[in-house]
């Protein structure tokens, strides 16, 4: 009798939470869909939503409107969705890893490290009159991410305070950015055009073959993160407790480093460094569902990142059209206040 009641009662709390998670996810999905449609409609060639639907159902034809939607806007919005989600998840992983709410690939300097290696590779490859393909940029970005991450980990072992870790990460980021700017200054004209645009952070110039590669990489890593949600949940209680319930802590830490680096490498390789999404989106996702249990947070986190990036890319394109802003500038405007709010809220940062 008591037992049956207990299960029902416990169940009601759990089901209330599940209902909340579900409604948040539905709301985010609706927001994402509408943003995608708006993204497809708005631009130098205005298209009505009905026309967009017609063009999409017809498939790619030679007409200008169709070309604009299929070849420019659709791959761009697809990349914004995928990379936004990836960035958000990467941030969530790093926050869990460092048990620090304002860790993300941008703040910790990992994006900048990746960017430096990509820029270096680009200059070398273009200098040799070769073509830089997507695989090469991803590979270079991954090497840069892992190297910077390794450096940040070395620092993290020595500093105990959360704020010191962030300061160290920001410094690493500055050093890498300075080196990149140095490279750009001395690169030849042809490279500069390529570098300048990309190194600010932008989804423009998205191509389908890149998008396919991104989709595969993001799908695999997201699936991997979701599969890790159980040990990640145990890890949130701290290393000793994770260990005591049977988590292979070393293995998990390695996987987190690898996956988060891969996700941020993917973003940097195709869109350049995009700031603050990795902090703002996971935080807003957690607040919305009122829980930080990875099983619930991971899908919501991905959706929130996608919505955030999609919205910011839309603003980047629209605000001063035809001049296009870097998406990183827009994400910073919306993301930085969230970070400041987090720092003020957290006692440990004072």
């Amino acid at each position, binding site marked *: 009798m008591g037992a049956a009641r*207990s*299960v029902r009662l*416990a169940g009601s709390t759990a089901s209330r939470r599940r209902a909340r998670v579900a409604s948040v996810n539905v709301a985010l999905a609706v927001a994402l869909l509408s943003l995608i449609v708006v993204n497809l409609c708005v631009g130098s060639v205005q298209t009505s939503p009905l026309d967009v639907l017609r063009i999409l159902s017809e498939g790619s034809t030679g007409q200008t409107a169709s070309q604009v939607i299929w070849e420019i806007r659709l791959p761009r919005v697809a990349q914004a969705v995928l990379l936004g989600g990836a960035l958000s998840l990467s941030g969530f992983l790093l926050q869990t890893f460092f048990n620090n709410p304002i860790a993300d690939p941008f703040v910790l300097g990992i994006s900048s490290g990746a960017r430096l290696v990509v820029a270096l590779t680009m200059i070398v490859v273009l200098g040799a009159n070769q073509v830089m393909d997507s695989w090469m940029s991803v590979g270079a970005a991954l090497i840069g991410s892992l190297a910077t991450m390794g450096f940040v980990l070395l620092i993290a072992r020595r500093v105990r305070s959360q704020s010191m870790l962030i300061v160290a990460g920001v410094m690493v980021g500055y050093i890498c950015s300075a080196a990149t700017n140095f490279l750009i200054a001395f690169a030849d004209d042809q490279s500069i055009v390529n570098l300048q645009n990309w190194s600010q952070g932008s989804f423009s110039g998205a191509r389908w073959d890149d998008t396919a590669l991104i989709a595969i990489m993001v799908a695999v890593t997201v699936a991997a993160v979701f599969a890790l949600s159980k040990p990640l949940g145990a890890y949130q209680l701290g290393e*000793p*407790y994770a*260990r005591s319930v049977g988590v292979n802590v070393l293995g998990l830490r390695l996987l987190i480093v690898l996956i988060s680096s891969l996700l941020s490498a993917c973003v940097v390789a195709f869109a350049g460094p995009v700031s603050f999404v990795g902090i703002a989106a996971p935080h807003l996702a*957690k607040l919305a569902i009122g829980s930080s249990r990875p*099983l619930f947070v991971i899908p919501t986190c991905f959706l929130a990142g996608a919505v955030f990036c999609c919205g910011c890319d839309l603003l980047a394109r629209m605000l001063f059209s035809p001049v296009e802003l870097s998406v990183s500038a827009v994400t910073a405007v919306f993301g930085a206040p969230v970070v400041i709010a987090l720092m003020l809220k957290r006692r440990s940062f004072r």
Partner: protein
Amino acid sequence: MTESIRPAAASRPALALHDVSVGHTERPLVEHIDLAVFPGQVTALIGPNGSGKTTLLKTIAGQLRPLSGSIELCGEDLQAMQVSKTARIMSALFTGRPRTELLTTKDIVDAGRYPYTGRLGTLSDDDEQVVREVMEATGTWELRDRDFAHMSDGQRQRALIARALCQQPRVLLLDEPTSYLDIRAQIDMLQLLRRYARERGIAVLASLHEIELAQKAADRIVCIRDGQALHQGEPSEIFTGPVIADLYDLDRSSFIDAFGSVELPRPEGRPRVFVVAGGGSGAAGCFRELQQAGIPFSAGVLHGNDVDGLLAASLAATVICERDFEPISDGAIERAKQEIRDCGALICCLERFGHMNARNGELVAYAHELGQPVFPSAKAYLDSLNQ
């Protein structure tokens, strides 16, 4: 005695350490530890700060490698065991507090079911039942939906103990389980741990700072100091003689075995007032008041194992004692009178005298004879000093 209470099947230790040395670096902090914890038994680790209790527990929990020696868990070598298997046998409470955000108390306790849940870690009805049972037993069920980060230290401590219990361990490691808890919660928690140990045959190894609780709640005590397990034994063996006083570098008379408690050191100097007490009248508002006011005093004539006799032995400069169960002898009276002459004032805590201490009345009369002030309580005496 403990031997006969222990179930026959449980004669094999659940946790055994053979010549183990532990430390954070290559240099051992504690060496050559031999230790066996039996199912259903509570073993307490006591010793001064920094003696290595936590390091020892961390090593057993697998966070540190033992520098030498071997650890056996239910007859198997711990080093060779898979962590997933260890997790079903042993759970732990550490002193570090998880820093969480947006996790409820129940989320924390749920985490203890990790070794038993499936791929995604969702709890089955059976898991839910275990969690609820443990949370009700630890008084955390009412807090289940509260954010863990926003609870008091004591509430968090109880939730973490619930977490360790719902892992359904056969060996439970607890690093200072009573810290942050108020006295009532400490007693409830130790009572609960004893009950779980007894009913479910859990072997409990806990470090305790409150030695008086260790004396009362543990079946065995292990004293750690100076890099070794100095003494091991049942509380009755450890809490006699100078073991505890030496373990913590206390003055030998300031630790009272019978109470399991420590008194502040006695005031220095020649006694200034003589206290006539007995039957607990000195303990109930005289001896400690004088000690706190910093006034050295003598007490008499007391029976050595009367509460007052035991307490006065810790606090009074001089104690005039009579043998237990004997009426006060001439010799004791003479020594007491000598003391009274030296003191110059007298406090008589007693309103009436019985057969055994009837002659204490002579001491009061003697003080009157000498023209010394006689006070009915320490308060009256201290007030007179302040005037």
